[in-house]
């Protein structure tokens, strides 16, 4: 089904569901509705998918052990999302790093709080969580600073690929009938009692149902379309430092701090790509676009990392980045139905969206059918295989006909790049190419491959890497 080019006007078609936003939630939503047999269109204002809140996170697949209590939307969606990811990941060729996590207590006061966190975890269904003593912690994580007092072990916390997963969800949606229009902002719309008429940057569309998956702009779209919003987005910036692959062997599992009322705190975490991540910060701000990094904050993250893992000071920084979480004034997710207007808003998916997205989609679809909507689910649907860009697993550079390696640090081949540029849901920006292939994301940050990329991407990006000399 169509991935409409980024410039043409769209045909005036009646859809069952229009999903606004192609972040991780929008991608999972499109998949669910498409597999259930609905006629789906995803609108994205950027030139590429995953260009807002979903572009930067810690890539952890959470069990929900520390989520709000059962019955909350967040807990329900994380548990369902987690389980569905485990069920489907291998069929989509998506990776899973089964590393587990530990909540580390660095003093007696923190150690005293582990009991409550464990009880909450058990209440949330994560019954394998258990408290271990200093000796046991250090036996599992010998590189930890020896001042660690105790830990809560949470075996089910895993790490995944934060971009290939939503990409695969959307790809499966498209291969099973959904459509995608990027570079297509939703400008306004009206509901006549049975259908929405939607004005987009590329023409008028009609849809029976509208689902707002706008992330950082969720409240604004609510205001625009239904004149009200039950929440206000309060962007919360999280900065991260990515350490060199040489640091990966310093840890086995995800290392979490004992959380405070305000924040879950700074995590030391392996990445699926073989790096080590330290972050995020939690900085409230007004801007919905400014995801800049700050030297002092990065330095503080490095020092925090060094205090947890003293040997980390011997390892180089590969990358730094920041993401914006669409937090609100509320603690729980803001999934709200306006049945009289065939409108659903999925808002406030602040930091657990990667884990919960599949669960959110199932949750929204249940509510959709509860409201009396029916489709004939696809009897047999296609499972696309996405490129495996994370170790372990067969990588393209190991296979014949790969065209040679272009990005040497991340071992990205010419064939992988050409698939990302010309294949399904082709990327239209360097950022998009990075998310699909990891080019320039390694140690040298483009020292070696920028020139080759400027040539390979010639004419493909509205914002080119380089323009030809006169």
């Amino acid at each position: 089904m169509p991935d409409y080019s980024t410039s043409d006007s769209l045909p005036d078609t009646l859809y069952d569901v229009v999903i606004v936003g192609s972040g991780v939630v929008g991608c999972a939503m499109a998949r669910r509705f498409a597999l259930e047999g609905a006629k789906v269109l995803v609108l994205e204002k950027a030139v590429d998918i995953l260009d807002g809140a979903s572009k930067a996170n810690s890539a952890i697949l959470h069990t929900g052990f520390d989520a709000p209590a059962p019955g909350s939307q967040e807990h329900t969606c994380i548990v369902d999302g987690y389980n569905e990811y485990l069920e489907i990941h291998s069929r989509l060729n998506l990776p899973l790093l089964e590393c587990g996590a530990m909540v580390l207590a660095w003093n007696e006061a923190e150690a005293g709080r582990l009991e409550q966190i464990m009880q909450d975890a058990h209440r949330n269904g994560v019954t394998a969580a258990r408290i271990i003593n200093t000796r046991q912690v250090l036996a599992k994580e010998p590189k930890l600073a020896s001042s660690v007092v105790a830990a809560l072990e949470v075996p089910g916390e895993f790490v995944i690929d934060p971009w290939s997963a939503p990409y695969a969800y959307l790809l499966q949606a498209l291969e099973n009938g959904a459509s995608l229009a990027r570079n297509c902002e939703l400008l306004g719309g009206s509901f006549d009692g049975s259908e929405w008429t939607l004005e987009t940057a590329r023409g008028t569309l009609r849809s029976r149902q509208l689902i707002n998956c706008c992330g950082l702009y969720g409240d604004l779209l609510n205001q625009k379309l239904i004149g009200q919003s039950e929440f206000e987005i309060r962007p919360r910036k999280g900065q991260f430092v990515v350490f060199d692959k040489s640091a990966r062997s310093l840890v086995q599992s995800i290392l979490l701090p004992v959380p405070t009322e305000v924040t879950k705190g700074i995590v030391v975490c392996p990445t699926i790509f073989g790096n080590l991540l330290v972050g995020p910060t939690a900085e409230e701000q007004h801007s919905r676009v400014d995801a800049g990094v700050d030297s002092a904050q990065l330095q503080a993250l490095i020092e925090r990392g060094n205090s947890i893992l003293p040997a980390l000071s011997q390892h180089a920084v590969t990358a730094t980045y920041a993401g914006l979480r669409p937090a609100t004034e509320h603690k729980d997710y803001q999934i709200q139905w306006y049945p009289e207007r065939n409108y659903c808003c999925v808002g406030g998916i602040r930091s657990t969206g990667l884990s919960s997205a599949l669960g959110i989609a199932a949750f929204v679809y249940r509510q959709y059918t509860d409201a009396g909507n029916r489709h004939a689910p696809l009897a047999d649907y296609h499972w696309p295989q996405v490129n495996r860009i994370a170790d372990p697993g067969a990588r393209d550079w190991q296979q014949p006909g790969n065209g040679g390696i272009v990005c040497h640090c991340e071992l990205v081949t010419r064939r992988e790049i050409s698939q990302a540029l010309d294949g399904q849901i082709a990327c239209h920006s360097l950022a998009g190419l990075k998310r699909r292939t990891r080019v320039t994301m390694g140690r040298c940050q483009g020292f070696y491959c920028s020139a080759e990329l400027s040539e390979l991407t010639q004419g493909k990006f509205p914002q080119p890497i380089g323009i030809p000399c006169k």
Partner: protein
Amino acid sequence: MKVNNCQVAIIGAGPSGLAVASELAKAGVDDIVVLDREANAGGIPRHCGHSPFGLREFHRILSGSEYARRLQRQAEDYGARVWTGATVTEIGANGKLTLSTDAGMQGLSAEKIVICTGNRETPRSARLVSGSRPLGIVTTGALQSMVYLKHRLPFKRPVIIGTELVSFSALLTCRHVGIKPVAMIDSNPWVTFWKAATLLPRLLGTRLLLNTSLEEIHGQERVDSVTIRNAAGKMETLACDGVIFSGNFVAESSLIRGSHLELDARSGGPIVDQYGRCSDMDYFACGNLLHPVDTAGWCWAEGMRTAAYVNASLGGELTQPDRMLEIESSSPSIKYFTPQRIALPERLADRKHPGLQIRFNDNFRGRISLQNDSVDLIGCNIRARPECRVLLPLPSGDRLSACRSLSLEFLPA
């Protein structure tokens, strides 16, 4: 997996790697393979469109790209095989390499392996620079390969961060294609490369801002400005469309990290003895991997010497040492030094060996000395500058053989 064999495998076809290949082939070693992951051999010089290169090697002034071609031709004329488009992904014990080419993964087994992977500049991220992350932020290497190899411009009015030799190379590259840098910025009060070089930016209409730090990068899609701060703390916003991070070279030691070879935390390269042998003596290393950053000519000369050691090693003349004497140093002024250990007894006397190559992390005057049990073996008064090599000759093999512990000490004047 298909496994190939050769006598000597050289990883990296830059000036040092090609010098090793030429010299070994000339000495009659057959079956030499030089592997390079790029499409063309030559290393960094191949994307330096400007001169001067080649005075030492070819006795004439060449552009970097012409120099690179000549180095390759020379190695091939002597009989070495230059295999481009081959990325070594893993190095292992017993001379076993894993590589990736268009044909997929394969193995290569060699008697001796020389690692000549060179160095690269420190990118923006590792410098922890504040601000947004738009298009238009590059290193000099990325700029030069884009301009000279692909004839593309990433921007028109960038700022250049740094005043090393390579920073001026960036300036010339810009001039060559009509890019007009707005400013050259260095947080130091002096020009790192050479005082007289300050004339060049002035002639080209580029502001030279010393004592000035880059505070923040701005722009969403592309760079639109940077905020800088001068010594007095005054902030200024410069409109520009790119940032060139030049210099601050680090060893390209990706292959060595995570391998069985010992790494030197100071230099970022492998630990080597005076013959360039790594902790696994089937492996040698030479060039800027050991000492970021030196000129192509220096690396080439080191390659020539290393070839003789490799050959002696193949011929059984350079054998396993009886003992290794590690060189310690507790001096905080010393950024790194190489070699880090001395193999004893000295099996080959090499009068051309430059001795210890030392880098300091700031401007210093003082006395550098190599000591045995706190007694000077050799020493000299020096004036050190960052990114400039200081050489300290090694004492004779006999004197070294009598040593119990070696330390490199610096006493500021």
